[in-house]
């Protein structure tokens, strides 16, 4: 469980990026933190693995205050994948990159090999096993960074903009993977601008603006409140945009799921199934 109580954070240059955030994420929850550039999303989540310590306020991970422990010991339970993969990749080959943390955590050799194989397969990177991460495309490097964290199977997974540079198929795989993680009671926190991805996953959504939380609730409700979203520089998912415009009909407004949309429209238009 992650608990943030009235967290403030100022960078050394005096900019206050987080201004009094209180947030509790339960074990097994899937939360998407959304908001405009510079809203403090990344700054906030960097507190969850102790990379940043609050200027005031408290952050507890599984009951332990992050100021009373080290990033290294938090890392075993909290995996963090950065927005920009180049900030975390450094090894000669993709395989070594994924094995790095496992070695540091002292996994046995055969377990390590199994986990590396599993992570490579999961992210479709098997053919790049012996390739340098720096020869890969931007989207592929992002997947290597993700694989290197998934390999040690942390209890809490924080993904900063995981869908950047990912094509449709990779996004779908990521979604499936998140569902699988949830069944295993893993906690997943993503920071993202990708409204369509969030609409497909329908997690709890936390909206941030100027260092504060301005909305927190079920994805379906947050992603269909046009005013709140615009305030956070997020656009409505396309399905929601369509339903908001059908204002004269009796159709509901809070629809984000495309299959639900299809069923409702079919009914409204009284179409016959083939």
């Amino acid at each position: 469980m992650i608990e943030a109580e009235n967290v403030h954070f100022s960078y050394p240059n005096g900019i206050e990026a987080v201004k009094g955030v209180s947030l509790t994420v339960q074990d097994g929850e899937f939360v998407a933190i959304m908001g405009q550039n510079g809203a403090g999303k990344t700054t906030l989540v960097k507190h969850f693995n102790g990379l940043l310590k609050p200027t005031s306020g408290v952050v507890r991970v599984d009951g332990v205050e992050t100021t009373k422990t080290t990033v290294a010991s938090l890392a075993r339970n909290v995996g963090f994948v950065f927005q920009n993969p180049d900030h975390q990749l450094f090894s000669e080959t993709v395989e070594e990159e994924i094995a790095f943390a496992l070695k540091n955590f002292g996994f046995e050799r055969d377990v390590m090999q199994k986990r590396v194989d599993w992570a490579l397969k999961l992210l479709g990177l098997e053919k790049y096993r012996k390739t340098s991460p720096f020869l890969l495309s931007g989207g592929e490097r992002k997947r290597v960074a993700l694989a290197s964290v998934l390999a040690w199977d942390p209890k809490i997974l924080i993904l900063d903009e995981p869908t950047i540079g990912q094509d449709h198929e990779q996004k779908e795989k990521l979604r499936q993977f998140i569902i699988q993680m949830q069944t295993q009671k893993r906690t997943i926190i993503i920071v993202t601008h990708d409204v369509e991805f969030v609409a497909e996953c329908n997690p709890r959504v936390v909206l941030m603006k100027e260092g504060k939380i301005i909305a927190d609730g079920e994805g379906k409700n947050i992603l269909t409140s046009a005013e709140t979203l615009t305030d956070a520089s997020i656009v409505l998912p396309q399905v929601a945009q369509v339903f908001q415009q059908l204002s004269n009909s009796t159709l509901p407004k809070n629809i984000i799921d495309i299959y639900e949309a299809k069923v409702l429209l079919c009914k409204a238009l009284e179409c016959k199934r083939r």
Partner: protein
Amino acid sequence: MPLVETKNLTYTYVGAVSPSIKNINIEVEKGEFVLVTGPSGCGKTTLCRCFNGLIPHFYQGTLNGEITVAGLKPTEQPTYDMAKHVGLVFQNPENQLFALSIEKDVAFGLENLGYPRAEIRRRIDWAMKLTGIYELREKSPHEVSGGQQQRVAIASVLAMQPEILVLDEPTSFLDPLSAERIFEVIRSLNKTLGLTVILVEHRLDLTAKYADRMILMDEGEVKLQGSPREVLSREEARLIGVGIPKATLLYQMLSKEGVKLDGPIPLSSDELATQLKEALERV
């Protein structure tokens, strides 16, 4: 004559076993807005690197076939000459920012080409205002957010006023409203100044509506070309795994159920909503 033309363009990186792009034959006319899409790793970025000669001058490897850009051969011209004609915005903004202040970064290209001081001032102010970073100009490009860095990268290329603007996922770090604003700016430069735009994107929900033409790549090859409506309505587009805009997809799902809407396949939620409103009124 097309502004950009490739004939059987094929390129293999050093140390790679197979080519990243294979037999690429494309033509881009002056003033066109072309959207290039395709799965991750399909060769989109590699193709971009050919337009301004980064391939083969900066990246070694084997390049075969022909490429002509603005009447020049990027394979023979030095990259600094190509830079006058082709502006490239990289996928990762950190790879192109280096100066001590944002303003200096935006001015760098113009200073190198020896423009007079007043002209540099005028152009960089214009570019920084268009991209919404004017207020940040004294800051270091490395102390601003990823989204702001992308705006700096776009501004520094726009300041050069190239004939051809090549953008490789230029707004991936930007929030959707900011991304839309940037695409609107690019679209208006395309319309008003006749700027030729080649945009690489996965997020078709944001970009399909701007493009005159779409090129779909897969495994290093061009698989489909045409208007976004033509390409997105083809079964191959779905099979290759392109992120079809949800409005387009919903239209397709409805027509499979026998719902006939009036109008062409929609590229945006506005287009679909209009068609649905009409259909609902008829019920």
